[in-house]
């Protein structure tokens, strides 16, 4: 076959530590901003790349374009007033914010969640995971020249948004998981309509498998690219599918079951190559598990029962001093809320642990040197990061 070796005779010298000594004014290096306004960026963030030829020698992640100061805003809001703003911390998969916050408040205030509400919460979280994976796989397809996958899967995601809408009353920010339960039960005939969506999804996923996962180009561009050494997982706080693609079956749903996950029957898919291919595949397989989980939840959910406990008067609701950490397995990894209360009507401190925080910052900066400039987008998409949960 053809082989192409770039001419590297004019490349700068490599320093004693095996890395380039970057000096922009030598003219040998070029600073290139990928983002915030760039098609190859995952949301409103940017990576400051230093390139040498087509090779990236250094990358710095810049975030803060979406910083609204949530953690500060929460400190001025009463416990119920925090509820509407938490979901905005992560746009594509907002429900983990609602769940983690609600669960943290419930724990510190000593409120029991009704059994049925737990099932509905799990349902919502899995629907959110479904959507998030749809976006992620579509994004990977798009970043590697298979935009049609993005077109299909965005359509399927939109069908799920319709289900979200009829269940929660909103498309994107559902604001449905209140502390104390959920706002309402399932609408009439919801299960049937959900099944239609899941069947459509499966059809499109079959096509996606043929178009993307058995595709010579896609394989060529993803296998062996963007490798993360599993030994680094703990150092860089890698969780979720990114870890599962490297043979570590980290999954909060199994490791530390919450809600009703101990009553559901599922396996955590694991891949071993720890490259872009493995990360895409593990998400694809996990999406299949999610579809199965959605069916299980709807089948096993209690048909009757309360979905909401009566709260104390939320207009002057005080929670005793304490602190807790609630986590869940989002589509990107461990999502957690650290809530500190001081006995007043306002949270003392809320800290959101978004999985992208570690993935897009230290890990991405560690992975970028040495990659081809054309692969940076794919690398970023494969880490599946959402910028608003980094800077909040």
């Amino acid at each position, binding site marked *: 076959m053809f082989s192409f070796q770039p001419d590297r005779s004019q490349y700068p010298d490599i320093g004693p530590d095996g890395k380039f000594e970057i000096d922009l004014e030598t003219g040998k290096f070029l600073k290139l901003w990928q983002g915030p306004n760039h098609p190859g960026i995952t949301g409103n963030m940017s990576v400051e790349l230093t390139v040498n030829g087509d090779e990236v020698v250094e990358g710095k992640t810049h975030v803060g374009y979406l910083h609204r100061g949530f953690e500060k805003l929460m400190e001025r809001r009463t416990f119920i007033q925090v509820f509407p703003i938490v979901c905005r911390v992560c746009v594509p998969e907002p429900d983990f914010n609602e769940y983690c916050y609600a669960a943290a408040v419930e724990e510190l205030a000593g409120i029991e969640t009704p059994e049925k509400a737990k099932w509905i919460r799990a349902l919502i979280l899995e629907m959110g995971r479904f959507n998030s994976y749809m976006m992620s796989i579509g994004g990977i397809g798009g970043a590697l020249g298979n935009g049609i996958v993005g077109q299909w899967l*965005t359509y399927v995601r939109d069908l799920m948004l319709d289900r979200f809408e009829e269940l929660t009353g909103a498309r*994107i920010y559902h604001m449905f998981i209140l502390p104390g339960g959920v706002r309402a039960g399932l609408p009439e005939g919801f299960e049937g309509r959900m099944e239609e969506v899941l069947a459509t999804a499966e059809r499109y996923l079959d096509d996606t498998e043929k178009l993307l996962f058995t595709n010579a180009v896609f394989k060529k561009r993803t296998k062996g690219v963007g490798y993360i050494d599993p030994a680094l997982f703990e150092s860089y706080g890698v969780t979720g599918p990114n870890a599962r693609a490297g043979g570590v079956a980290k999954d909060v749903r199994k490791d530390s079951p919450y809600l009703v996950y101990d009553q559901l029957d599922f396996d955590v898919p694991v891949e071993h190559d720890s490259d872009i291919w493995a990360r895409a595949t593990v998400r694809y397989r996990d999406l299949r598990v999610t579809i199965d989980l959605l069916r299980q939840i709807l089948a096993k959910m209690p048909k009757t029962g309360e979905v909401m406990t009566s709260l104390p008067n939320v207009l002057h609701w005080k929670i005793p001093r304490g602190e807790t950490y609630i986590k869940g397995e989002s589509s990107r990894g461990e999502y957690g809320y650290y809530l500190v209360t001081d006995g007043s009507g306002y949270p003392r401190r809320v800290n959101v642990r978004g999985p992208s925080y570690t993935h897009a910052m230290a890990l991405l900066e560690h992975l970028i040197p040495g990659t081809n400039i054309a692969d940076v987008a794919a690398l970023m998409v494969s880490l599946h990061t959402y910028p608003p949960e980094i800077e909040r």
Partner: protein
Amino acid sequence: MKDIDKSFKKDTETDFPLREEMRPRKVTTPDGQVIDIDPLQDYFCQEPPKVHRKSYSAIVEGFYNWARANSLWILGFGTGCGAIEMRPLMTPRFDAYRYGIQWRPTPRQSNLLVISGYLSVKTLKRAIRAYEQMPQPKYVVGLGSCTINGGMYWDSYNTIKKLDEYLPVDLYIAGCMPRPEALLAGLMDLKKLIRKGEAEGANRYAENFDWYKANQKSVIKDWDMPDYSW
């Protein structure tokens, strides 16, 4: 809601220093020459924007407006949450392309800037640059509560509250966030405005350029760009 701390006074004394790479300095080029550079002067055009004159003939202007209205090219810059509802619009289910609306990766090819919700100060800076780089005639649409009056980030230290203070907005769409259907309805309304020749935001920007600049600079402390960057 916690009460405001009336005793709090913002620091208005400290100026943010100009970044190192933006300062005038001497540079040795790869071929050994030593030259003076002043990035803010050398790299950009300093000419302020001009009002885009209407055509002398109403018929010709009407034809222009018809053409403009039917090719809304949106800059694919997701400035805030609302960007997530653009995806359904770009894809088959809502398919905005059939209305002559499409997304472009660069401001140079776009004539519509959609501010999809809140703007942090950091993004405002990029949005201004993106807007100024867009060729005229150009339009701005504000999406959702945040662009109208700050939305749910009304008390945030890092987001602007009134978009029209910094950029000329032609149209607002209410919602948090507006659904794709509402977005389409808004874009259809924008088309009508353009056909009537009433979407004059860019000319407003040119006419009140100093006012906009002063507003922009009052919130962007780290002003490391030229005053106009078309």
